[in-house]
C-alpha cells in the first residue's frame, strides 16, 4: 500500500532564509510524487510533480523538490523564504497511471515564515 510521511507538523523559518519541508514515501513500483499548498479555507494548489527524468523538479513560486530514490524522499525546498509562503503543505504519492490518480496524502506540514 502507498503511504506518505511528513515528519514535521510545523516548520519555522525566517524570511530570506532557505526552507525545507520533508517528505518520505512508500510505494510498490515507480512513484509519481506531488506537492500541494493550502492557504486557510482554500482548496489545494498544485506546486510541482515528479514523474520521471531529472531528480530536481522546479515548480511554482520558486519552489523545487528533489526526488531521492535510495532514501525514498521528496523534500520541498526554496532558497529564500517569503512571509507569503506561510501555509499548509502536502506531499502526495500515486502509483502513476495516466488519467487516473489515486493520490495518497501526507498529514501536512505547516510552514511559518517570520518577518
Amino acid at each position, binding site marked *: 500500500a502507498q503511504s506518505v510521511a511528513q515528519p514535521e507538523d510545523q516548520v519555522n523559518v525566517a524570511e530570506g532564509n532557505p526552507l525545507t519541508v520533508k517528505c518520505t514515501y512508500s510505494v510498490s513500483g515507480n512513484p509519481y510524487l506531488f506537492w500541494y499548498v493550502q492557504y486557510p479555507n482554500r482548496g489545494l494548489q498544485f506546486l510541482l510533480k515528479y514523474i520521471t527524468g531529472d531528480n530536481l523538479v522546479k515548480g511554482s513560486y520558486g519552489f523545487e523538490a528533489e526526488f531521492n530514490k535510495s532514501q525514498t524522499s521528496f523534500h520541498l525546498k526554496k532558497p529564500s523564504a517569503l512571509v507569503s509562503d506561510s501555509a499548509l503543505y502536502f506531499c502526495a504519492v500515486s502509483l502513476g497511471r495516466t488519467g487516473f*490518480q489515486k493520490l495518497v496524502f501526507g498529514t501536512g506540514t505547516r510552514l511559518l515564515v517570520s518577518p
Partner: protein
Amino acid sequence: SQTIHQWPATLVQPVGSPLSLECTVEGTSNPNLYWYRQAAGRGLQLLFYSVGIGQISSEVPQNLSASRPQDRQFILSSKKLLLSDSGFYLCAVDSAYEQYFGPGTRLTVT
C-alpha cells in the same frame, strides 16, 4: 484549463439532516472526479471517485454517498448527518498527471 466550482462554500446543518454538496467542472469532458474530506485542517481522505457518468467507487464505508448524474457534475450526499461528518470537503479533477482541486465546502454539523 479546468475550472472547478463547489457549492455551497459553507454550510451549517443539524445532526440528522440531509446533505447535498455539488461539484461542477468546466473546460474538460469525461473527467475523473474525486471527493476528499479534510478533517481538523490536516490530512485529506479520499471518499469517492468517478471515472464516468453513473460510475462511483467508494474508498471508505461511511454515512455518505456520491452520484454523478452528468459528465461534469459530482454530488456528495447524506440522508442523515452525523457530528463526525463535519469537515472541509474538496472536489478534484484529473488533468494529465495532476489533480486540481476546487475551492471546497466547509461543513459544520451541530
